[in-house]
């Protein structure tokens, strides 16, 4: 019998600890599939961030460095300077990347550091128990915006993809979602492209993945999936905003 579906080589067989309906598992798998596709598992370094994704090293069969909160892009920049023939990626949530680590990711992008950043945006702090994130939508209730996010006090949800696409450094900047099979297929393709950019030496590649957090949103997995389509995608539109075909030279 022909095997048509299996666990990617770049993943371990450890069961995910993620909550039911959380998208981390899907995103992990798509990243692992990309590493398998380019056959780079043995020369890949993952940089884990702080949040639910800190346990990256339990699920990826690659070397992993755990970064301080927000600093994954800087850690990856240092690692890549040494292991410049390796594939180096970070995997960061919205609190990590778009609040405490904003400076690090912007400057890694602006330098065109030849790394790949997977940015999982679920519009809330997951691990700490549902506090307001920089990407929390207006009106969205969280434990620290109990009356809903108010732009007069909290500002607006930050659009990292649009911000980074304005820079010269990045080779690829894209936003995807994994809430439907068709979106998963598109996300798989974009994540693969992002790693291809790095492997071809084209510089910083960035994929924002809209993700659910059913537990902290107080929703069923199905309702959380629906919310991606109904509330998140309208504010955070999907698509590739920037893609370079040539390498910039001095």
């Amino acid at each position: 019998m022909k095997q048509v579906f299996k666990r990617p080589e770049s993943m371990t067989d450890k069961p995910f600890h993620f909550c039911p309906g959380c998208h981390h598992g899907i995103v992990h798998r798509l990243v692992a599939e990309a590493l398998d596709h380019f056959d780079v598992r043995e020369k890949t370094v993952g940089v884990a961030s702080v949040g639910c994704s800190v346990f990256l090293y339990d699920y990826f069969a690659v070397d992993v460095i755990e970064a301080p909160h927000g600093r994954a892009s800087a850690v990856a920049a240092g690692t890549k300077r040494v292991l410049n023939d390796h594939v180096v990626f970070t995997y960061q949530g919205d609190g990590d990347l778009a609040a405490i680590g904003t400076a690090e990711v912007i400057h890694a992008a602006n330098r065109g550091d030849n790394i790949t950043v997977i940015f999982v945006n679920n519009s809330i702090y997951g691990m700490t128990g549902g506090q307001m994130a920089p990407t929390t939508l207006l009106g969205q209730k969280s434990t620290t915006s109990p009356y809903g996010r108010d732009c007069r006090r909290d500002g607006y949800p930050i659009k990292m993809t649009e911000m980074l696409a304005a820079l010269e450094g990045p080779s690829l900047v894209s936003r995807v979602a994994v809430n439907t099979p068709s979106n998963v297929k598109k996300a798989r393709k974009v994540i693969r492209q992002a790693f291809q950019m790095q492997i071809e030496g084209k510089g910083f590649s960035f994929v924002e993945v809209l993700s659910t957090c059913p537990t902290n949103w107080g929703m069923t997995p199905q309702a959380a999936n629906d919310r991606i389509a109904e509330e998140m995608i309208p504010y955070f539109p999907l698509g590739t905003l920037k893609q370079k075909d040539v390498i910039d030279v001095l």
Partner: protein
Amino acid sequence: MSTPKKVFTKGNEAIAMAAINAGCHYYFGYPITPQNEIPEYMAMHLPAVGGEFLQAESEIASINMLLGAAATGVRAMTSSSGPGISLMQEGFSYFAGNELPAVVVNMSRQGPGLGGINATQGDYFQSVKGGGHGDYKLIVLAPHTGQELYDLTIKAFELAEKYRILTLVLGDAILGQIKEPIVPWIPEKTSGDADRDWLITGAKGREPRRITSLFLADGAMEKHNWHLQEKYDRIERDDVMVEEVDTEDAELVVVAFGSVARIVKSSIAQVREKGMKVGLVRPITLFPFPRKTLLELGGRAKNFLVAEMNTGQMVEDVKLSLPDGCSVEFYGRPGGSVPTPEDLFDVISETYKKL
């Protein structure tokens, strides 16, 4: 053998030169006075040895870039001064928890706050007591001359690798900016440890590895902390460095480190000419602190004078180290002023006369 070639150079450049000669090919840093000659030298000279210089967007980024490089086992460093070192404290704590080796230089400047750009020893507590969170130590080396800046920079890389620990070279604006002759040399070992079983190199033909400081399993955190403590104990046992000058017959022993110790050396020469029996203990490692030296010395010389360019930091460690029955005087000058050899001559003579 030919006479070793002397170079006339600034303290900051001596450090950069020593680092490259020790095989440090990766430097990450952010500009701040009074240490800018270090990144400038690195930016100029690292490309020639196939290394990488990277100017970070902040000291927070510098220390984390250093973390990313250190995890691969290469020799790498950053440098900064007071305010920048404060920003790095989070990273220092992660280096400790992750047990990663690297070298950081603090050419300290006056604080608190933006302070000033001249010399101070106000960062003693931050350096040896830990400015970051958690129960950890750094190795802290305190050079007092250009040559020692060079020598201890090389030593810093060796100690960092020996113990998988962050090693801090604590200088100040005087030491960084002073220009004097040094003799450069090249150590035997000029690269990191390429074959250690914890290095992040890509999981080729082996199990994947992780660098982490997160310990959530029952008892795992305590076990890790005891492991770190055992390492700090070994460092205290095996790698204390201290210089003693004229202590054999001393009735008064001055304790000072770094540039103040250098000034004190001149003052002691002057008081010795006047027949006063005064000696100097100069801790070269601030952690591990030369507790044993002071404990033994305190058995015969009962009078001590601690001189620092701060309002009293190392003096606490001196008091803790000495046996009961010793008297400890303190002379301190806060950030913003530097004592002259004459100032210290007066202080030492007055203290001596009161014995």
